[in-house]
Structure formats: C-alpha cells, structure tokens
C-alpha cells in the first residue's frame, strides 16, 4: 500500500427527483417555489400523492381544501392521499 485515504470531504447538490419540470397547480418550476413563498428549498417542499403525482406542498394543500376539489388529485381525479 503506497497511499491510503485518511479522510474525505465530499460535496454534492440535491434536487427534487421529479419527471416534470413544473408544478401542475401553480405552473412554477419545482426547483423554484410556489407562488406564496419567496425561497425554494426546505421551506417550500414537494409532496407526492399515492397516485405518484407531485406538487408543491403548499399548492396541493390549498387545492384539496378548496370546496370544488372534492379531495381529488387535480391530475388524475383519484382521491388524494399522501
């Protein structure tokens, strides 16, 4: 053994693992934030329903609580479950 690793400081960036680029409700980028937030990232997270559709958490919460939505996913009209 000539050399061996003593320590390693690695750097990585994270991004959301999504197929679409934008949120189906607010049409803003997933890498950005929903229309009510100022900063993307931990303060404006994404959520996935059981139907595998993904939205800004703030957007889908507003959606399922609105009277006309009947707790359905806006993309596939199945019942929205986290």
């Amino acid at each position, binding site marked *: 053994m000539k*050399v061996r*690793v*003593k*320590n390693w*400081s690695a*750097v*990585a960036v*994270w991004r959301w693992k999504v197929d679409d680029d934008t949120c189906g409700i607010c049409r803003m980028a997933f890498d950005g934030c929903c229309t009510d937030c100022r900063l993307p*990232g931990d303060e404006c997270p994404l959520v996935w329903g059981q139907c595998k559709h993904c939205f800004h958490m703030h957007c889908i919460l507003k959606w399922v609580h609105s009277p006309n939505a009947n707790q359905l996913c806006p993309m596939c009209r199945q019942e929205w479950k986290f």
Partner: protein
Amino acid sequence: MTLKPVSINFDDKWRELRQQMELIVGEQSSEVSGMIFHEVCTARPTPFADKLFREVSAFFSRHVTALREGILEQESNLLPGYASRWSTFDAGTGYLHMVFEFYNKLATKHTTSGASFQPDDGSNTPMPIMTLAYKRWREHCFEPLKTRLLHNILSEIEKDRNGEDINSSVILTVVNSLVTLSNDPKAPLDLYKTQFEAPFLQGTSSYYRREAAAYIADHDISAYMRKAEAWLDSEQLRARKHLDSSSYSSVIKLCEAEIVTAHREKIQAECTRFIDQDAREDLTRMYHLLRRIPGGIDPMLVAFEQNVTAAGLKEIERLSDAAQKPEPYVDALLVLHSKHNDIIRTSFDNDNQLIAALDKAFRSIINDTAKSKSAGKAPELLAAFCDQLLKKSNKNQSEAEIEEKLQQVIKIFKYIEGKDIFQKFYSKFLAKRLIHGVSVSDEAESMMIAELKAVCGYDYTTKLQRMFTDMTVSEDINKTFNEFRSNNDIPLNIEFSMLVLQTGAWPLGSAVQSPFNIPAELEKSVTIFEAFYGKKYSGRKLNWLHHLSKGDLRATYGSKRYELQSTNYQMAILLQYNNEDVYSYSQLRQLTNLNDADLKKTVKSLVDVKLLNLDSGAEDVTESSLLKYNRAFSNKRTKIKITTAVQAETKEESVQTHKSVNDDRSLYLQAAIVRIMKSRKTLSHNQLVQEVIVQLSSRFQPAIPMIKKSIEGLIDKAYLERVENTLDKYNYLA
C-alpha cells in the same frame, strides 16, 4: 383715618404733595401716602380732581425742563449726564407710579368715561403717572436733545470699534431710555427704531463697507477671513452690550452683507487652493463665514467635489497596475475617503451638504468607466478585497480588525452602482470559502452579510444566507449519518464528511463537470450515504460534485509518512499507484474517466510536487507521457498541500461572471418594466425610463439604450403596445 369726603384746602395739600413728589422723583426717600389723593379728589364741597391733574402735569413739565438744563451744562458729551438723570427719573417715576395708585385709577376712569375735564394745554388728557412722566420726558428732554445724543452715541460706538475704551453702560442706559419711552402699544419700540436703530444701522453699514474694502485691498484672503471673523464676533458682542435684543439679528445681517456677501467671490475663489494645501484652519473659517449667507457655501461644495474626484482619479492612475489588485485599490480609496471625511468633520461641522458632495465625488471615482485602468472593476475588486479579509491566511488579523475593515468596505460599497456585480463575485468567493472551509470566522461572515442586507435589503442577501443554512444543515446530516453508521455497525474505513448543497443557491457555475470514476476506496461511502440520504429525505436526488471534493491521503516512503492534502482528482490518480508503479497517460485517462483538460492539469500538479515523475527527458505532460510513481519522494514538511494551477481559470471565471451579470440584468430590467406598467397601465416613455432607473438603483444603473431595447423586446412579446397616434406612450397589455 377715614375714607369719608372731608373738606380740605387744595393749595395747602398740593404744596405738601409737591414737596414729596420732588423728593421721590429725585430718588430720595419720602413717606408720602396715597391717601392724600383720596382726600383731594373726594373733597367736599368740590372735589379737586381736575385741578390736581393739571398741577401734576405741570409739575412734570417743570421738573423735566430743569433736568434738561442740567444735562446741557456739559458741553461735548451729553451721554453721562443724560444717562444718570434718566436713571434717577425713571426709578423715581416708577416708585411714584406705585404709590399713586389711586391717582392712576382716577386718571384712567376720567379718560374712559369721557368726563368733562378739559386740560389746560389742549392735548393733555389725564393719564397715569408713568405715562405722563414719560411723555413729558420725551417732549421736554429727549426731543430737544436727540440730534446731539444720537451723534454722541454713534461716535462712542465708532470709538469702541476702533479699539478705544468707552463706557458701555452709559450707552446702554441711553438706548434703553428710548425703548422705555416708545410706549405706544400699537407700534412698540417705534421711538427706538426710528430715532436710533435706523441711523445706527446705516452707520454700521458704511463703517464696514469702508473698512472691509480697505482691509481686503491690503491683505490676503486668509488674513481677511481672520479679520472678518473678529469683526463679526466683536459686533455680536457689541450689539449685546449696547442694543435692544430686537436689533441683534439686524446688525449681524448688515455686517454679514458688508463683510462677507460683498466680498464673497474673492473668498470663494480661494477654496480650491485651501483644500489642495489641506489648510484646515482657513477652510474652517471660510466655511463658517460663507455659511452665514444664503448659497454662500455652494461654490465650496463644487470645489470640494471636484477636488476629491480629481485626487481620486489621480491616485488610481498613480497606482497604475497595482490598481487592478484589490488591496492597493481599496486601501487607496479608504485613505482618500477618511482624509476628506476628516476635513468635513474638523472643518465643516459634519455639514450634510459637504458629505453629499463627498459622496458624489466618490461615486464618480468608483464608477468611472473612462479614464482609469480599473474602470468598471470596482465591484469585483471590492468583493475580492472582502475575500482576502475573510479567508484564513498566515497574516491573520484579529477579529476586531477584520470587522473594522469590513465596516470601511461597506462605505465604499455604498457608492458602487453595479451592486449586482459585487453580489455575483461576493457569492462566488463566499461559496469557495465555505466549501473549502477556509472562512476566518462565522461571526465575521454573518456581520458582513448583515451589513450588506442593511444597505441593499433582504432580497440582496437571501442567496448568501441560504449558503449558510446549507452549512448548518450539512453539519446535522453528518451527525445523524455517523449515528446511523454506528447504530447499524457500518464501518467506512475512512473519515467521511459531506456537504449537501441546495441547487440554485450556490454560484457553482453551469460549466459541465468532467465525467469521473469514483475510486474504489471511496465508493462505499458514496453508496451508503446515498442510501441513508434517500431514506431521510424522500424525493431528492444527489448529484456529487467531485471537482469540489477533497481529502487527505497518507503516503509512506520508507520510514517517513506524509499527509497529502489533495483534490478528488489527485486522490483518484494517486490511489491507482497502489496497484502499479507506472501508468501511461492514456491508462490514467481510462481509469479515472477524466476529460483531458482536468486530467492534464491534475497530472501536472502531481508532477510539479514530485509525487510522480515524467519519463526522463520529457518536459511536459503529453498524450504519450509515462508517469512513474516517485518512490524517492521526500519533503521537509510532513503535511503537504498539492496545489493546482488556477490562474487561467480565474480570469475565465471573471469573464463568465460578468456575462451572467449581464444576463441577469436584462431579466431584472424586463421584470421591472412589466411591474411598473402593470400598476400604471399607461405611461410615457420618459416616465417609464425614470421609474425603471429608480426601481433598479439599488442593484445597478441601467443604461438607457438597454432600457429601450428591453421595452422593444416586450412590445414584440406583446406585453406592451404603443398608444396609437402618440409618439412616446405605452399601454400595458394584460
């Protein structure tokens, strides 16, 4: 004693009363009683009120006339005689007025009730003692003497101005007598104003017109200003010694007009010279003189601004190439700033107008795009200066020193127009400091960010703030990861730490990373961490930035062990040599999968530090190089940092940064235009341009052609339209 009317002999009573009055007016003690009036005025069978009024009136006429004769006995200077007699008379009258209260009441009643009393000399209605006494004094003493009195006063004051000793209290008494005598409630001070103040002011005016013209003809401005200051000070004092308080400001105004306003051009013309010579005393004096007159310091402001600007540009020119480096450039500006700030503080009373002039000058020095070599470089240089301060280095300064320097940097920062350029560079430098862990202290970093936020607002620093958040979040992740490993008994064989950054918050550039095969020694860490992270934060994907990662290698040469601080790429190459002693360049490329640019640079860095040897005779790393592990490596130190050549890269980076600033600017511009038009609906071209400039001023100064281009772009995209039949109006299209 009784209050009932009694029968009296008027002549007897009056004789008695007159003697007492004479004593009192002569300011001698007497024991007169007000009762006597009561008796006289209510006497039976006829009250003697009318008669009494006449007698009292005549008494004062006689008395005052006698006093006047006394005053006139002195030939040349009437003032002392007048003053002393007036003082006595005034005091006595005052006393008499109090004692004869009943008389006063009666007199007032007589006048207001329109009684039948006809005064003997026509104009004299009965009046209270005080009023009567003053009236008589005015008629029989002041009026006949006034010309001579005035002449005497003026010549005394002129003597005083010429430095002779005079009796100021006498003058004040005489002047005050005029104030007292002008007792017309409709025009208070009327006698004082017309008989004394007007001629006095005229005299003052012509005195200083003469003196100032004569003095300035024989002396330089510096001496003249000293004299002027002395004149004004002494005139201020003189006014307080001799005049009624209502005249103070008029006298000083007149003096200012003759001493300062009349010669302002000559004084103002010297300003530039005094600043050049740093003649603080003269500047102080000039400022205080010119500040007295409206608009007086305006030429000073211009001269000051021009002087600072010229000095700044000259200094930068003198620095020449050095002005392209952060430290000399910023230091030169700071020295210049503190020097002129000091002048403002010591000589100009921290006057806001001069501070504004200094600001204006600095803005034009720093944002100068034409003359100096460092034109337009200020934001970049300043950001680099901050980086030098905040980076760990061998010439570490104390925390307090760093903070003080940063405070000064903020002063310069405020003048920068391209604040967005500064922000770009600053965040780049900050990212490097954080990722490489070379920041001098968290406190200093957050202080600087707080300062920037205070100047430019919340938005300006959010990205910087988020980088810090990522640092703390990463710390937590490392902690939980280590707990997770020890709980599940997963050894990694190396010390491992992670920085997980948020996409978008870090200015890591869009440059494509080289592909890279992770060395086998590190692969386990990567896999385990990814599994751990994916469980903890679902829905997130990690993208490893190998060009920013680094680590320490332990290398053993015989009995000697070295610690090599190296980048990921360097590690990957060195680790290959655990298997073989010699690799060709293309073998290394295959093993690491690095692109040529990065591979060449990395291999070169290892050759430079003599960890690898080129085959003999070869000068440089090429396609065909054979690279041999140097078993005979030796170094004085045991800890070695393998440096990579970075010079060329930074220049490229700087160009890249400037380009990205320009891209951002056009976005900001369009957003601002749309925002404004959305709220205003219709605007003329000039109004729109104005508002855009105002909105963006905290980030940068948009050039007019750039604004025009953006407006046209937005018209093409149908955000705006031109209003029909007008030349320069736009409508917002929803």
